[in-house]
């Protein structure tokens, strides 16, 4: 489904000043139309001021505000990026076992001049679409579908691009009965030895095993306002404080923003978003992401398969290693001494 028109704006709680300012702009536009009067100069000033307001609102966002941006209902999703970044997309369906999970979109496409297999999680934009996609929480058949397409890519030596956007894998009874944990675990195992380059991007929410299920990659990128976490802040708060209302505190403690994860070297690159987030200008966000994908693919595409796999393995082994008592910015030591912990 296409992006919503910009005139039906949705504001986040920290955007109250922006909402008020936009209301003023709309009123003047309406007045101008109704009375056929020229307010172009006033509108120009107000629009310039709008940029300052957005800049101010987004200049110092905390982790919780960033998470709100990552969940913005107008934020570009996988199918939007398929339209904006890729060409000649040919969708491939089914897992050859149970059903076609619409939470996972997969298919052959072109990224610039590159032929790639693109796999992404799609949440949907309206109630009906979210019902069909289970709001982007894949079932095991979704993960099996993704792996099937990745094996197809391997057979044809096509690089794989994964777009991650999920709160997590679906934890329902049916999903567990059909082997949700096993499906994700098999993806982790098989993706770690996939003999083609894999670039993954967290475009919105990167929730837990659901994100990891298509996230084992040679390069892991993150959109500036995306988050990537072992648990949602609400889930964490419910466990630690017995109340989801402490989600903001949990978000800060979890270190799940792109900046935090880049510092810990969990991700390789932060993809800059337009001012005010990707939803403000999806085309610009898509252009930046496309450039980042092409650059990263170019870096790994020519590597011999053995080296590609060795580097992927080394990259994964570096995760979760830190020096106790060391400065936060100090690089983590892989396979370190007795002080290093995993």
């Amino acid at each position: 489904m296409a992006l919503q028109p910009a005139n039906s704006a949705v504001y986040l709680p920290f955007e109250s000043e922006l909402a008020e300012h936009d209301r003023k702009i709309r009123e003047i536009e309406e007045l101008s139309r109704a009375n056929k009067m020229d307010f172009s100069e006033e509108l120009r000033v107000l629009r310039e001021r709008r940029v300052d307001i957005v800049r101010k609102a987004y200049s110092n966002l905390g982790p919780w505000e960033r998470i709100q941006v990552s969940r913005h209902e107008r934020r570009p999703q996988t199918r939007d990026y398929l339209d904006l970044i890729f060409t000649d997309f040919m969708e491939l369906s089914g897992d050859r076992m149970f059903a076609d999970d619409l939470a996972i979109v997969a298919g052959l496409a072109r990224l610039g001049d590159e032929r790639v297999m693109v796999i992404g999680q799609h949440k949907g934009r309206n109630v009906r679409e979210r019902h069909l996609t289970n709001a982007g929480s894949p079932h095991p058949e979704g993960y099996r579908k993704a792996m099937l397409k990745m094996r197809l890519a391997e057979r044809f030596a096509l690089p794989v691009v994964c777009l991650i956007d999920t709160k997590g894998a679906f934890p329902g009874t049916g999903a567990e009965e059909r082997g949700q944990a096993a499906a994700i675990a098999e993806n982790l195992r098989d993706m770690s030895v996939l003999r083609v380059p894999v670039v993954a991007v967290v475009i919105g929410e990167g929730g837990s095993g659901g994100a990891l299920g298509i996230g084992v990659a040679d390069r892991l990128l993150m959109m500036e306002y995306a988050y990537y976490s072992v648990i949602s802040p609400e889930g964490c708060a419910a466990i630690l404080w017995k109340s989801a209302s402490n989600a903001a505190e949990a978000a800060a403690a979890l270190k799940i923003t792109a900046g935090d994860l880049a510092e810990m070297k969990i991700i390789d690159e932060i993809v800059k978003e337009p001012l005010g987030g990707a939803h403000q200008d999806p085309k610009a966000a898509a252009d930046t992401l496309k450039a980042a994908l092409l650059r990263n693919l170019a870096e790994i595409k020519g590597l011999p398969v053995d080296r590609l796999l060795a580097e992927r393995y080394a990259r994964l082994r570096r995760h979760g290693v830190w020096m106790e008592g060391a400065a936060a910015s100090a690089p983590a030591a892989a396979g370190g001494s007795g002080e290093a912990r995993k």
Partner: protein
Amino acid sequence: MNSASALRRPALALLLALFCSAGCGPDELAPLPGWGADYEKAAAQAAAERKPMAVLFSAAWSPAAAKFESQALADQRVAGLLAGHVRVRLDLDQESARKTALALGARDRNDNVGAPWLVLVSPEGERRSVAGQCGADHLAGFLGTLGRWQPLAGWESDPAAAEARARETGKPLAVLYSAAWEQEAAAFERQTLSDAKVVAGLGAFTLLRLNIAAHAKRAEADKVKAAPALVLPAPGGSLVVPEKCTPAALLSCVSALGGKPRDLPGWSADREAARKQAGAEGKPLALLLDSADWPCAKFAGAIQDSPDATKALEPFVRVRVDFAGISEKDRADWQANKAPCLVLFDAAGKRYGTYGLKNAAEAPERIAERVADGLKMAAAKTGS
């Protein structure tokens, strides 16, 4: 035209019609008899007539919603139970319906709404919902649990009248936040508040009972998150008694309110002398930090009234000190940030334990048990 082609044409048309209809359900909801489609109008009617409201979120493409409507809602018992409600059905394909669903809390923890979703709203503003397709038996059973908000004997329901009466009689206000659709609230009123001793204890207060949904702002100001909760006035603030409170625990709170420091035989008031005595006799020291408020009276009473705790305190030199009189450094060292507090020291003057009131509604027996256990362990550690 020959007969073969004449037959083929309608057959092709039928195939085309079947092909076009396959996989695409109707785009708009057909009207449901007895259910309106205008939420604002329904809400206004419910408010004007003081009637409960039933809001059904549905969608033309949802087989579950169609089944729910044709089976569960069509059931005679369900229809009877919903007869007194203002009924409105909203199409989730409309953005306004989705926003209404979010506002009415018809959403999962990830803010997803789905069809069918039935939300019941009481005239006081309480809400309950049934998500997903369910059978007529389940729905009828659920609707049967939703009673009406009724007055409770002895409790005022008008805040202004209750406050006026409190001023007039000099009896402080006790506010009960309750709900018609909360089973715990009904149980608390039936079991705890109807206990004869509690009724007598609460006689010292002006009693006001409010529906938490209708008085959400006041409840928030009183730091009450859920019903039932009883807010009692207390020095320096208020005491919120949660629903888990037993009659005995509530009674101890009520009777301790406004109480004076209780006499504690066997406890001296000279801290320095007690410290010296403990050192000279090689005994551990129990230091009770308290003040004149009700939590201290409750804590001290709980310890004094418990044979177990009294016995466990026997090996200790006991001293009782006003919390206000101790230094900031001592408070920090003893990890005693508020009264009441029992701080235990060994004969050498080293602190090895601090016990306080876990929460205001903790039962006296539980306080005594906790302190007695701690004292026994402490005594075992020091060999006394």
